[in-house]
């Protein structure tokens, strides 16, 4: 019998019951909650007179709506200028207080983006099933966990039953072998992958990242990659457990201690695909082929390299893609054949659940150090992923480097990734962003997003247009 993939193992370990039609009831070890996708779920519980099945499996923090300016943050919830946002953040507090769920509220130094907070607290652990009403929950798969985003009805279902009804997905392996070049990060790797397989390439699949380039990658890099599995259509991204995982998890507040640590390490050691495991599909990528990536269009698959150009209509695969290209040129205000390095930036955003961890901020600071943000850039924001990331960065003096270079140093939250708070692009503005989606209007009405790594974003801020970070 063939061996099992990491996904097969995680699935088997969590099946409560298999139904006749092939769907299964899967047990959920951890649910993360935020203010946007939970209010209707809590309301559903109240209407049905139900209680959460298991309180200690849940952890909440507000992130999408929270303001990131120190002034607004000082006055707590009342300081949120937008009344609709204020109600939503307040509703999360009220729901968590009412039901007894642990929440890192806005003023708590542990508050931050759920996908930064979970791993940072050790609330995300290897071997777990992790869900959240947010598609970027795939992030947590970097810990050899089975993690994916769910809708609000499913948030309610997990609160009420600690289970989800699932059908097993297919196994997809993205194998990245070789050594990544200087300045090439997890962000470049995953954007390259999306460029190769397309935004629907992983639909219906659990995507495991393997190969020698992944084995040497930091947890931050792995999280960035898994985070964007969803942009390739895969709800689940995963990386096998190894020493790097263990090193990251050890000593975190929710991580097992003493005897239980030993017991856990033994259980986790098998969280990898067997050598003879069979995948439904394997995509092989040579690490040496990957250059710094920049998206030019309105879907993450519309991506090219820093030395590339906006593709022409002749390069489109078919009529549907051709009409997508045409729409993207118009929306983005770009022309076919235009050089990527000629794209001028109005704003720069360094942050989001994709790239707001300490390693990301260090990479951006290294580029910013001793340099100045270009006079043609209206605003360059650095938004740490959590209060603890912010504190760490300040301890290392990164905040000073950014401020001296002309960046704004903000309070933690999702911020300009999706512009639910006050941080947004103006109509027609181009932004170099370390976030995950370049959809129309994502960062603000009429805003034009280009996805890049933190170092590339910092370099673009300095130059006022895209530049190759390897040449600095």
């Amino acid at each position, binding site marked *: 019998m063939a061996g099992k993939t990491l996904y097969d193992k995680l699935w088997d370990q969590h099946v409560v019951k298999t139904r006749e039609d092939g*769907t299964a*009831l899967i047990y959920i070890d951890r649910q993360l909650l935020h203010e*946007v996708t939970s209010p209707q779920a809590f309301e559903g519980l109240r209407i049905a007179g139900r209680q959460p099945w298991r309180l200690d499996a849940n952890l909440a923090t507000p992130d999408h*709506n929270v303001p990131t300016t120190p002034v607004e943050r000082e006055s707590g919830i009342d300081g949120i200028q937008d009344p609709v946002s204020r109600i939503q953040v307040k*509703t999360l507090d009220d729901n968590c207080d009412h039901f007894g769920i642990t929440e890192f509220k806005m003023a708590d130094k542990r508050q931050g983006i759920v996908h930064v907070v979970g791993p940072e607290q050790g609330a995300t*652990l290897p071997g777990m099933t992790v869900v959240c009403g947010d598609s970027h929950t795939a992030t947590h798969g970097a810990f050899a966990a089975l993690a994916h985003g769910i*809708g609000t009805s*499913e948030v309610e279902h997990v609160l009420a039953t600690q289970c989800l009804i699932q059908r097993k997905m297919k196994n997809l392996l993205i194998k990245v072998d070789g050594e990544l070049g200087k300045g090439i990060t997890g962000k470049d790797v995953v954007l390259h992958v999306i460029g190769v397989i397309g935004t629907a390439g992983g639909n219906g699949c659990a995507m495991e990242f393997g190969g020698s380039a992944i084995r040497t990658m930091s947890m931050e890099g792995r999280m960035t990659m898994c985070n964007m599995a969803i942009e390739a259509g895969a709800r689940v991204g995963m990386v096998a457990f190894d020493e790097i995982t263990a090193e990251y998890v050890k000593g975190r507040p929710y991580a097992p201690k003493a005897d*239980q640590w030993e017991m856990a390490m033994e259980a986790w050691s098998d969280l990898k695909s067997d050598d003879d495991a069979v995948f439904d599909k394997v995509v092989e990528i040579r690490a040496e082929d990957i250059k710094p990536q920049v998206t030019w269009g309105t879907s993450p698959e519309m991506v090219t390299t820093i030395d590339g150009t906006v593709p022409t209509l002749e390069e489109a695969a078919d009529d549907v893609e051709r009409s997508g290209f045409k729409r993207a040129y118009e929306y983005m205000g770009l022309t076919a054949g235009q050089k990527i390095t000629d794209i001028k930036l109005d704003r720069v955003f360094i942050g989001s659940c994709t790239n707001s961890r300490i390693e990301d901020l260090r990479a951006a600071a290294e580029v910013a150090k001793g340099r100045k943000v270009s006079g043609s850039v209206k605003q360059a924001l650095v938004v740490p992923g959590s209060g603890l990331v912010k504190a760490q960065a300040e301890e290392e003096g990164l905040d000073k480097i950014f401020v001296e270079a002309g960046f704004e140093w903000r309070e933690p939250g999702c911020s300009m990734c999706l512009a639910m708070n006050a941080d947004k692009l103006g109509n027609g503005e181009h932004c170099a962003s370390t976030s995950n989606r370049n959809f129309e209007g994502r960062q603000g009405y009429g805003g034009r997003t280009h996805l890049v790594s933190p170092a590339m974003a910092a370099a673009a801020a300095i130059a006022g247009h895209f530049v190759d970070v390897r040449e600095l």
Partner: protein
Amino acid sequence: MKAFTVHQGVVAPMDRANIDTDMIIPKQFLKSIKRSGFGPNLFDELRYLDEGQPDADNSGRPLNPDFVLNQPRYSGASVLLARENFGCGSSREHAPWALEDFGFRAIIAPSYADIFYNNSFKNGLLPIVLDEETVDRLFKETEASEGYQLTVDLENKKVVTPSGEEIAFEVDDFRRHCLLNGLDDIGLTLQDADEIKAYEEKRRASSPWLFS
């Protein structure tokens, strides 16, 4: 949840691939703590010529005359026809809520993003997968004849065209059962509460660090 058995309605063709959830319902409307009322802001940035705001009156806003749902011939449409990877992007259930609130009961496309597909079934909205060639043909038929309607029969898993042609589609038995009967799946899962408890006890013994 509203039950879905047979539905007949006008088809609106949205001829583009990768329609994402930000397009279906832009982020500013996700600030609502309710489940309803998203219909007027469905496809907000495509539908109107200005920027929409939550809790605002949409009646006086300038409409984009080129947008398919603003064209009189598709008024009252309840079946949406689209290209591949419909609903990609975020997990926001506000997307199916907005489609349903607008009046859509079924979508036909060659493929869907997984989370959107799941979410739709929980809200009485039926996402039907048909092969690309068939979808392409339905686009042509819809555009060729004004008032074009399709009948969606979930009981018998088929779409019926005006000429009487029957096109079969696949759907999970469990999802079909829930949708046909308008069932809340939390109630169904709780019928297995003893099995969940038994699993949980085993897990507590093998992985005590997961339980505080």
